[in-house]
């Protein structure tokens, strides 16, 4: 116990406990959705196993330390890029049994008993690589220096999009933007980037990169309150079912394992992308509030850690982890309650799925690792520029 308290700094505790509580809620949600079926709760058991592996990864990061990991930033990045490239290649060259098509996409690499969803790990390696690059201010204070962060972002983004996995690829841009902002990019540079990004949205929307059904899902968002059954039954089906599950939860919820709603699979993807609807259906508004507060605790604590550290790499890592978790949470919850279009996106720490859970705990490990290195020196704080 003493070893544990020594291993985890003060600021690490709220982060870890909140994440564990979220995972626990997720386990209950998965279990309740599964309880109505015959046989043992397989998904729940697997999820517990993934949690153990995730926690193992979390402590491993503590042992190694984020600085040491930072030195491996580019090799790790290239490793994940290589894996992503293999996934794309698998579309043209059969690579069974390592890579097989599932759900019409190539996202998973199987090695022995383990299956990796590469994009989840790519998320983490992307944060490390970006933080490693941005830790020197000269690297990005000029427009030309901004090229490198964009290359680091756009290449994995394009590859993940190609799998296809629209959700994960969309996480990278906001993360990049927040990291650049915190790192101290000039405001006018940021404005240009923002402007470019804004113009890219309609271009992307009408480009062939976007599937017709993805467009329909965006349109469904704007048709969600129509009574016309066409939207409700087609592109808006998942949203409709999700809102029905959440809305019928009421204030205190339908109760744990009480609802026939999930037993009859009325909500597709309930373990994964729509786990928030399961939570909100079972525990109502209060449960949903609790989940959102837990995320706010993680992010607020994470930003406190970022602000407390004097090490630019540590701060950028902390901000990057917070940004990615925050964006993922916003998109996921947003899509279940009809504020965001539906994309395949899991809810961090809660959704079922091994790679997601493990990579999120790895990211959390980075955050806590940063918190362990509290500054003791009296040197001037970094990130202070007098020419702004």
């Amino acid at each position, binding site marked *: 116990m003493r070893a544990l308290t020594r291993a985890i700094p003060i600021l690490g505790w709220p982060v870890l406990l909140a994440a564990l509580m979220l995972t626990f809620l997720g386990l209950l949600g998965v279990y309740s959705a599964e309880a109505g079926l015959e046989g043992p709760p397989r998904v729940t058991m697997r999820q517990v196993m993934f949690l153990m592996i995730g926690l193992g990864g979390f402590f491993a990061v503590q042992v190694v330390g984020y600085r040491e990991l930072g030195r491996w930033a580019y090799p790790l990045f290239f490793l994940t890029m290589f894996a992503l490239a293999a996934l794309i290649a698998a579309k043209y060259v059969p690579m069974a049994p390592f890579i097989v098509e*599932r*759900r*019409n996409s190539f996202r998973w690499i199987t090695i022995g008993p383990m299956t990796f969803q590469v994009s989840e790990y790519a998320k983490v390696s992307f944060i490390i690589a970006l933080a490693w690059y941005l830790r020197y201010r000269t690297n990005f204070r000029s427009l030309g220096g901004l090229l490198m962060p964009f290359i680091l972002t756009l290449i994995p983004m394009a590859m993940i999009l190609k799998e*296809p996995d629209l959700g994960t690829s969309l996480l990278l841009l906001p993360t990049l933007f*927040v990291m650049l*902002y*915190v790192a*101290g990019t000039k405001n006018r540079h940021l404005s240009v980037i923002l402007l470019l990004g804004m113009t890219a949205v309609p271009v992307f929307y009408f480009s062939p990169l976007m*599937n*017709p*059904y993805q467009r329909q899902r965006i349109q469904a968002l704007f048709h969600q309150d129509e009574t016309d059954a066409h939207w409700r*039954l*087609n592109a808006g*089906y*998942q949203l409709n*079912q999700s*809102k*029905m*599950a*959440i*809305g*019928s*939860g*009421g*204030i205190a919820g339908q109760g744990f394992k009480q609802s*026939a*709603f999930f*037993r*009859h699979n*009325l909500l*597709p*993807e309930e373990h994964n992308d729509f786990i928030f609807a399961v939570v*909100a259906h079972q525990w*109502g*508004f209060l449960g*949903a*509030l609790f989940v*959102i*507060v837990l*995320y*706010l605790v993680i*992010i*607020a604590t994470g*930003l406190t850690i*970022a*602000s407390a550290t004097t090490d630019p790499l540590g701060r950028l890592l902390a*901000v990057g982890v*917070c*940004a990615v978790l*925050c964006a993922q*949470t*916003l998109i996921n919850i*947003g899509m279940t*309650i*009809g*504020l965001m279009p539906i994309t*395949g996106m899991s809810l961090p720490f809660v959704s079922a799925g091994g790679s997601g859970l493990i990579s999120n705990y790895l990211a959390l490990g980075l955050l806590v690792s940063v918190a362990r290195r509290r500054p003791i020196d009296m040197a001037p704080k970094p*990130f*202070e*520029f007098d020419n702004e």
Partner: protein
Amino acid sequence: MFERRLRVVLTIPVLCGLLMLARLYRLQIVERERYQENATEALIGPRHYLPPLRGAVRDRYGEVLVSDEPAYDLTVLFGALEANPEFVEQYALDIRRSEPDWSEADTVALTEEATHRLDSFYDRLARLSNAPFDDLLLRRDQIVDSVRNLREYIWKHRSDKLQKSFKEFRIREQHLYHPLMRDVSAEARAQIEMALRDLPFVRIEPSVRRVWHDRATPLCHILGRIGQVSPERIENDTRRGDGLARYRAGDLVGVSGAELLAESDLRGIRGYEEKDLDGNVVEYVPPVDGNDIRLTIDLDLQQTIAQILIDAVHEDENRTGASCVVLDVESRDVLALVSVPTYSLDTFRESYSNLRDDTRYRPLLFRAVAEEYQPGSIIKPVSLLAGFRYGLVDPSATSFCDGSYKNDSTHWHCWTYWRQLPGHGDVNAEQAIQHSCNIYFYGLGERLNAHRLTSFYSDFLLGPTRSADESSGTGLIEERSGIIPTQEWIFGRRGRGYRIADGRNYAIGQGELQITPLQAANMYATLARGTFRDPTILDDDFRDRPETEIPGLRTSALNTARRGLFRCVNEEGGTAERTAKLDEVVVCGKTGSAQCVSRALRTSYVFDVGGGRQQTILAPTIEAARAALDDGDSAELIKRKIVERWPPPREKEKTPPPHAWFAAYAPYKRPRISMAVVIEHGRSGGQVAAPVGQKILRAILASPHGYLTPDDRGPLAKRKSEDGA
């Protein structure tokens, strides 16, 4: 100052968190009830309709002849049967929605998959159920056609009330499940349910099947058949406004016989059931079964008579069929309505083309009501009554018969002439009927003339209040009203007025005059009772069918005719005296041998098959000929020629053997039963039909239900002694 940027960054999740909470507040607290209602609704499965049992048809004494039993149908959503683009698109989306493996497939691949699953469905089903693949496709096409026809029909007849274009016009049937396979057996059902669970457009639904009971065969024509409802009937149905009671395309309704006649009683009202997804019944509206109906037919009597007739037909190879009708004189209940040959209702569908092409025996023909025969001599009492009506008969006046009638240049003969027998000599009215003397009636018919004769026949056979084209009698759709060759009819058909010969012919029941066996039996009931009433096969209150007087019919005239009929059976020299007389009961009857023509057995059909080519097919029926062609439905028939007839022509005789009639009522006093029997090409009424009639009368006497009782002879003995005195 970049600490500030961290604080700015922190505001984003906080603001977004508040936004999400606001949204959740709206969903979970403000609009909670609406979503809870929706969720409850979403847990209710689709509505399943429950078919009612169609009413059973029973005989006079309650024995069930045909009834419904619960069964199961395999039903398929119409869109899937039609495989229209809308459905394929919908189904593709459905696959994406419900199958995670397809959740992000692109539309083209999904559409291909959906189309493939639809296409392969029939093959899978054929293998699972052992039903022939082609039959399934045929059935599918039938359903699709019938719904399309209905849609067109409704559009044509109701377009004034609808604003939408025909393209957008949808009928309910386009959203319903239709039976692709009826009466699926239990084992096949289990297999299909397991194997086709992945196809949301297929269901196994409760249904009914019509079951004919063992002894129903002698009533096959009467019971009739059920078949798919036509668009006209759906639209003109009185219950069209009621969603559950109305017909739907594909419903099985009575299309012939009693099934059609009593359709409004027999049909029920469908119910429905809604279950939640756990299988608990949420809403249940039970189906209302149809009412049973009771026929006036006595099954035992019907069966006995059918056997007698079958034996009679088998005696001579020329004979092609027979029919017998037995009526209750007062109520005109049809106690037996027999047509032979019969067929089995159970195997009707499979054997249909054989039955249809049997042009020698024509088993599908409902002879008792649908076949019109020259009545021959059995009409003579009625022509006598016509003579009385116009004051042209003196009951005691005689005509002299030497076998020939020579009033003009043509030669007319009595039946004795052809048999090389001497003439009847002097005959009065009663004797003319007793001996069936043609010469007497030639003279009578000539004096009466064809016009007065046929108008009297019309009153007597169809009822005084009816015109010839109105359907009379039982209301069976098969029933025909015979041919009474009125002046208009002759003019329309022959393009000329009456000739003198017509009166002579009609007076002896020849020429164009034709009646059905039912009309013959009813004619004798009218003779027995003196008033007309429609016959019925449905057990009803006979007082609802009014008894009408026949204009100009006097009791004294009737009695003369009745005495003639009495003498025909009971006194020496009567044509039925040796063959139809019964010791137990006094029968009044008349024989008839009606000249007729032979019928086509095989015909040579010449078709224009397109491209200037012609094809000649030798077949019993046009349907069989078309079936033998490659593209039979569109080929145009150019000409036909009968190549073989039945009965086959013989050297000695110019005409085929005549139809043999015997019509009678009994007992003489207080008549209770009338009957008519006809044996096609039986040759002689007296020698063939009368013995058969005697057997039938014996069967009626033997019936435990007492239609005729032996002590009915009592009044006759009294009457004879009175006469003697």
